[in-house]
């Protein structure tokens, strides 16, 4: 099993003390699967994704990645393997290339070895090919990131996450702000990641695609598996 979450209970500060947003949630993700989580607004879907990426305090329960407990991974290493793409794709100031190469400038990429052993950053030609693949061939690498549209920024952010070669991809409403064409390109990238033996957890407002391997429903803080192939 790639990622296992057992009995996750997530509390967040409320107006009158801590409130359990998600209670006793468990899910297991196998390699090469697309998993959808649906539920109404405010049901805790984003909170659950943040917890899976170890991006929340006050989470009880157990998380395991590739058979190893969460405590055996540093938080930073975990997050590069269980990669979250937030709903709002924040670009850092700089160019498109700066954003795509950002993961390679972070310390976690060099952790545990000499800089020469760190994964080498993609070349400009490789970055252009990646942009082409997601329908952004007309975007120059030196374009300021602030001048990207919402749809373009979403795809650049997804590329940026994929360049870190994660094992699990957590997508928070990946097509919420996209036109049909951009959404189709994001769906293609997602499928490609799954076919390369990655696991995807995709949060959606209410609908799910028939292509998902498993469908979970989160409502009232309870996670239930609706269908599974």
């Amino acid at each position, binding site marked *: 099993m790639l990622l296992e979450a057992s009995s996750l209970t997530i509390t*967040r*500060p409320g107006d009158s003390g801590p409130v359990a947003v998600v209670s006793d949630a468990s899910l297991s993700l196998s390699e090469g699967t697309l998993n959808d989580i649906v539920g109404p607004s405010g049901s805790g879907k984003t909170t659950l994704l943040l917890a899976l*990426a*170890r*991006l*929340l*305090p*006050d989470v009880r329960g157990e998380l395991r990645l590739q058979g190893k407990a969460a405590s055996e991974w540093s*938080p*930073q*290493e975990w*997050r*590069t393997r269980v*990669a*979250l*793409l*937030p709903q*709002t*794709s*924040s*670009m*850092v*100031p700089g160019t498109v290339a700066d954003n795509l190469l*950002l*993961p390679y400038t*972070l*310390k*976690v*990429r060099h952790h545990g070895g000499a800089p020469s052993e760190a994964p080498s950053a993609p070349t400009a030609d490789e970055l252009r090919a990646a942009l082409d693949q997601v329908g952004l061939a007309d975007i120059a690498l030196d374009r300021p990131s602030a001048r990207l549209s919402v749809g373009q920024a979403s795809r650049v*952010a997804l590329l*940026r*996450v994929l360049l*870190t070669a994660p094992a699990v991809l957590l997508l928070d409403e990946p097509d919420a702000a996209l036109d049909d064409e951009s959404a189709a390109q994001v769906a293609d990238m997602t499928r490609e990641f799954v076919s390369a033996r990655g696991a995807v957890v995709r949060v959606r407002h209410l609908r799910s695609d028939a292509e998902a391997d498993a469908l979970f429903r989160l409502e009232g803080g309870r996670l239930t598996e609706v269908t599974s192939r």
Partner: protein
Amino acid sequence: MNVVTQAVTAGGVVDIGWVQLLLATGFIIITGAISLALGLGLVKDLSIATVRTYVQLLALGIVLRWAFGFNTWWLVLGLLTVMVLAAARIILKRSPDAPPGLFATSALSMAVTGFIVTFAVTAVVIRIHPWWDARYVLPIGGMVLGNSMTGIALALERVFADLDGRSGEILALTALGATPWEAARASVITAVRAGLIPTINSMAAVGIVFIPGMMTGQILAGADPLAATKYQIVVMLMVSAATAVGSIMAVMLSYRRRFTADGVFLEKGARV
């Protein structure tokens, strides 16, 4: 001529009589009248500020006169410590969104940089004897701490406001595996620069736009302008260094409080 001669104190300064001192309030009263006429709502603030100016500065004059007469090392250090604690409290009031523990951070940053710089000026540059002479240490310490306080307050207010403003970007960076330092670095740089802007601006304008307060005081007291200039250069450079190091230290010691031990950025709703 005679009148002036009689009013000159032993230090060479033309003394101001109590009546003349009260007359200075006249300009504030005129400002208050303008505020009333235009409905600016400044009368209360101006009144409080004016009374505070009188009370605080007269109290300072009395304390300094007493301290200069008493002049012991422990009294000088004690007064500097009181100044540091008062400044830390003011910084805390100016940063309402700051996390807990800021008082200690501000006090430590100011104490370390303020004490080192003040005693470096008095003991090494001016070479006074004894090294803790209240007449030199307290005014110079006050200038160093006052400027540090402004710089640290600006830097701390900015670092937390900037981190909160970049929360989306910080989440994206953290999700990519960034450490708190990597995620916060841009905010730290912005904050330290903000803390140093008043100092750098005054260094750029000094001598051209204004004569600094210390130099003005020395010239009014009859000092040679060139001697006063040398003092001012030393003090200005030391004050700038103290402000810079104090701001950097305060920001570096405190930005991490917005993150958990696991490097998770604490958004507004998630803070204790």
